[in-house]
């Protein structure tokens, strides 16, 4: 019972982190996360991560200036930005919680989980580049205008998390429960789930289920269940995580613009995105492995319990996303009301 017991509290653990310190930072740079409401050791650990991030941030100024020299200077900036991105991803933030819960709730393969993480980080970098190009470069807008735009994107991203969470909660928690309440047996619940997962193959699978007459639930491993990414759902997950640009990318882009080396800013933002994406991808893979370890362990118990365990894990992950989205969106709306 090692994994299921541990992975669920881990998800819940991430909640207070993002729930705290929702308001704007005194120095106006949009910065989500940073809530220090978690346990002390976590706060200390995040403080250390933040110190490393700052260590790379401090060197970015010189690296942007050196960009024009070309050669090694280019790699210096890319390397620093990449490292900054890695430590940015290790710090507090809702993106990791969303993707970990998403892959658990959807029984994604490790490959799909990693792909989702990388795509959302790429989107995040592109949004930052587009925002600074349009607002700062073309319109010469102020920092406060950029902060406003970021806040809007943030609100949209939180609303998407709520929508995604509600959708998953319906699929993974509410509907299976309704099925259970009815005269249906457990296998129908699993079957319904499988149909949702790979609707293209639902006929074949339903036939297979009837054919083998498995009166008890069986919990296939993620590799067997997750087909190609469901793009509709995957896209909303990518948007939910990638819509809001990271402040580090915005700041380095604006600084590069002010120094007349905007290309350096674009390169830095993309390298940061790669660092963040790979780090979150690693986390997504861990979440997938934890999920399938739970399933395998459960399979050792009894087939019926394995199915229940899996369903419970998925339902908890889906509800986790919904709860997280509600907390984030609520905090955002409360802050907007307080500011008005």
């Amino acid at each position, binding site marked *: 019972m090692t994994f299921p017991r541990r992975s669920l509290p881990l998800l819940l653990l991430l909640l207070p982190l993002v729930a705290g*310190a929702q*308001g*704007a*930072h*005194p*120095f*106006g*740079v949009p*910065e989500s996360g*940073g*809530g*220090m409401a*978690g*346990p*002390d*050791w976590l706060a*200390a*650990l*995040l*403080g*250390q991560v*933040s*110190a490393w991030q*700052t260590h790379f*941030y*401090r060197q*970015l*100024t010189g690296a942007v200036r050196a960009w024009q020299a070309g050669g090694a200077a280019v790699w210096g900036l890319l390397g620093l930005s990449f490292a900054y991105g890695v430590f940015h991803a290790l710090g507090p933030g809702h993106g990791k919680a969303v993707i970990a819960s998403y892959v658990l709730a959807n029984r994604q393969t490790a490959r799909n989980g990693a792909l989702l993480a990388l795509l959302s980080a790429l989107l995040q970098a592109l949004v930052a580049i587009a925002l600074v190009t349009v607002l*700062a470069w073309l319109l*010469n*807008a*102020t*920092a406060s*205008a*950029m902060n406003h735009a970021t806040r809007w994107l943030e609100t949209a991203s939180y609303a998407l998390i709520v929508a995604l969470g509600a959708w998953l909660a319906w699929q993974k928690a509410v509907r299976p429960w309704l099925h259970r309440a009815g005269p249906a047996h457990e296998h129908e619940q699993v079957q319904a789930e499988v149909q949702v997962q790979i609707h293209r193959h639902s006929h074949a699978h339903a036939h297979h289920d009837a054919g083998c007459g498995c009166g008890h639930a069986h919990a296939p491993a993620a590799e067997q269940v997750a087909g190609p990414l469901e793009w509709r759902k995957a896209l909303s997950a990518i948007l939910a995580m990638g819509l809001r640009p990271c402040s580090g990318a*915005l*700041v*380095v882009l*604006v*600084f590069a*613009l*002010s*120094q007349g080396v905007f290309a350096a800013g674009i390169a830095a933002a993309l390298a940061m995105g790669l660092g963040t994406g790979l780090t979150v991808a690693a986390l997504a893979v861990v979440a997938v492995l934890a999920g399938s370890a739970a399933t395998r362990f459960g399979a050792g118990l009894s087939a019926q319990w394995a199915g229940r365990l899996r369903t419970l894990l998925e339902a908890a992950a889906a509800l986790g996303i919904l709860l997280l989205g509600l907390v984030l969106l609520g905090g955002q709306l409360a802050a907007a009301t307080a500011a008005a």
Partner: protein
Amino acid sequence: MWIDARARIAFDGQGRVAAIEQDWQFDEMFGAYTTQGLEKGPDGGLPAATLQGMARDWMRALGEPVSHYFTRLTIDGQALAFAAPRDAAVRWSPQDQRLSLSFTLPLAQPVAPGKQGLRVDIYDPTYFVAYAFEAPDAVALAGAPAGCTWAYQPPRALDWQTMQQLAAIPADPDALPEELFAITKGLTHRIEVACP
């Protein structure tokens, strides 16, 4: 972001600490971001009204209880209250692209540090701002009685053992043993002032 900071501990005529005078110089990237799109003079300078507006906004935000001017003063473990800050000013240097904020934070009730000492902790609880007290005159006493001394201690890097110690204790901060609480507090920039 990071801040190159200076703090001066100002004494009154009776040898009591009356205020902390702070000067925070923001990093260049933050300066570029914050001044982006603002109307600048021919020399690259910013209008006085713009700078005053920044000072007003920042001081108001810093005064929120959650930020508490990123400064904590304690004597004998007791937190000291501040009066309203004064002399807040923002400067912008077009030459080196640096913005800075200076302000004076008076104590509601001046206090004599005594032998046990007065403790000044400066830090951003969200860890978003990293401070650096690296200038030779980053910490100074002003108008202190003879024999007063100060010591500065940067935030300590957490070693694995400390992290495990912290992990082993309950999340409720009120439940922390005094010794471990001090470890947690060791993550700040700390200035200790003692007088005979």
